[in-house]
């Protein structure tokens, strides 16, 4: 039996769980999904149902397929077998379906992936103007609204290269929000950040969760998982090994591999 210390939530803004409501409406339905990279079987028989308003944290050792899983949800990766239904639309090779789903699903990357040749404001207004066909003025107002929300409205006219990592990641979140997504995917949003910048990004994400956004977050920030998630999923070798509510997941992990993983990332 491995002794597991509860994850620290110190320093993070306290999350108001009463406002995070899970409805019984299905947002994402994944059934029997398999994916290969060449010969390598990277995702195996994934079944996952995500309800609207859920905050799901996915963790696991590197190479376990957690990033690949959420990248399949907006078709950045193609799956070979099984079904993914996002918001009632099935992901197929039909390009129109894929573009529709992508514009409704926001994604935040580990390395921010802001567009360096555009200003912060232009980064945020580009997709609304070209994909949603929103008038420029209106798109700029929306962008300023979300930039204010992530607390960097004063940087609107700068270029991404002039911002710190934490600021860039908050811009990336604002850029996704400008598309008014129904679901947000986070692919290790804090892994490329200095420790003092992690908090500002996590605080932004907590705020988002409190507003009822459906979120799938791949992260190793267990404090965040404990505070915000309503479900924690542990993946290993391309499979979902264990999933549970955070209390039970951290307090009483069942699978040996989960216990080992938790003791490695929490037990120091």
């Amino acid at each position, binding site marked *: 039996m491995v002794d597991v210390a509860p994850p620290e939530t110190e320093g993070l803004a306290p999350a108001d769980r009463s406002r995070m409501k899970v409805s019984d409406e299905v947002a994402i339905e994944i059934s029997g999904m398999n994916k290969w990279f060449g010969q390598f079987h990277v995702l195996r028989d994934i079944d996952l149902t995500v309800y609207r308003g859920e905050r799901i944290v996915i963790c696991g050792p590197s190479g376990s397929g957690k990033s690949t899983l959420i990248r399949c949800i907006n078709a950045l990766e193609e799956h070979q077998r099984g079904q993914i239904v996002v918001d009632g639309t099935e992901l197929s090779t039909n390009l129109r379906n894929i573009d529709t789903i992508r514009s409704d699903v926001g994604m935040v990357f580990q390395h921010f992936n802001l567009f360096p040749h555009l200003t912060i404001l232009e980064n945020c207004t580009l*997709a609304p103007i070209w994909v949603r066909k929103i008038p420029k003025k209106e798109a700029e107002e929306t962008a300023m609204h979300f930039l204010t929300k992530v607390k960097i409205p004063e940087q609107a006219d700068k270029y991404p*290269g002039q911002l710190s990592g934490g600021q860039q990641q908050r811009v990336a979140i604002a850029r996704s929000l400008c598309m008014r997504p129904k679901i947000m995917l986070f692919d290790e949003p804090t892994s490329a950040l200095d420790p003092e910048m992690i908090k500002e990004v996590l605080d932004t994400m907590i705020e988002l969760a409190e507003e009822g956004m459906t979120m799938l977050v791949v992260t190793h920030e267990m404090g965040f998982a404990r505070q915000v998630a309503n479900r924690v999923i542990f993946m290993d070798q391309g499979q979902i090994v264990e999933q549970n509510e955070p209390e039970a997941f951290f307090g009483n992990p069942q699978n040996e591999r989960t216990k080992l993983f938790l003791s490695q990332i929490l037990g120091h």
Partner: protein
Amino acid sequence: MSDTHAEAAQLAFVRQEPIPPAPPPVAEAGIVKWLRDNLFSSVPNAILTLASLWAIWWLLSSSMPWVFNGVWDAGSLRECREILDGATGACWAVVRERWAQLVFGVTYPEEAYWRPATAFVLLFVALAPVLFPKAPRSLLPFTAVYPFLAYFLVWGGSVWVPVMAAAGFVVGYLVFQRLVAQSFAMGFFGAIAAALVFWWVAGFVTPTLTAIAPITLEAVESRNMGGFMLNLILGTVCVSLSLPIGIALALGRQSGMPVVKWICIVFIEFIRGVPLITLLFVANVVLAYFLPPNSTFDLILRVIIMITMFASAYIAEVVRGGLAALPKGQYEAASALGLDYPQAMRLIILPQALKISIPGIVNVAVGLFKDTTLVSVIAMFDLVGMIRGPILASTDWNGVYWELFGFAAALFFVVCYGISQYSQWLERQLQTDRR
């Protein structure tokens, strides 16, 4: 014990007054410091400086008298020598006497010189909104009209030929707008088909239109074009055509569609593997075998096609380098926001990839412009062809090599250095990642 106390008391220190800034010593500032740092920092360095100064002096002292003591007013090389009477001096009179031939060629009609000259001046007006972001956007329609206007000015003939050519593009664009909503490929091929049909019909209509409204300039055949004008025509047309074609080839080479990809690879690798001069000979001689007898497929057009193909293969490889240098995350972020392929390319990928490619593209453009002198080998009288042919072969100017080729070099240098300076300015303009 008391010793250590005393020492500690001496070590402790508090500054009461800040030290005011003082000017640096004379040897550490201004021109003296610059000379010391850059020219005489060590003995070998000082020797090199002195040797270089001597070399510069020697070059200038032996060439400048020749340049500035030149004769500008003479009718032949013999007259030049009589005027100089043994002194060193260039015979610039050849440039003055044959100026019109050097610029327009031998057979371009003299009374029509104003036409290419006007086209040349208007070229800058047309390029301004493309090259300089601060130039008024309202000039862009003129840029679109310019190619047809320039053709009309330089070649002359009926105004309806370029008008119909332009109208074909408009028809193609309208069809594209109509069909692109269904699919990009459909819009693209529909537009090409519509334009071709329009041009085919226009071929029958144009003579009638000319008869009804005879707006014409005296027609000048392609074989009468020559001099630096020919280099400028070839250079401008080929650069502006090869850039979009090169970008398309680079994107095609990256394409997920195997047929498109292989066509692009084969084209690029084949063209890059063949010397330009071979392609020019093909344009001049071999193409004639494949064309129906008595067909008049313009020689300049054939040369333009060959040089454009050649340059676009090189530009494609330069752009491919720029595309490869972009992190994969840029493609992913663009897709994740729901941008489709043309939007992602136009708004995200190409602006960044082309910015990286600017030095390489300019390199190709400058090289291409200088390579236009190769047409002198296939009996076209461009600037170098004029010098090697009619001028040096004339009894008056036989033997004036230095002056003529020096003049040609100076003309090309001005244009190429201008292009190079522009590209460096553009790179500074586009630099957004500085902190």
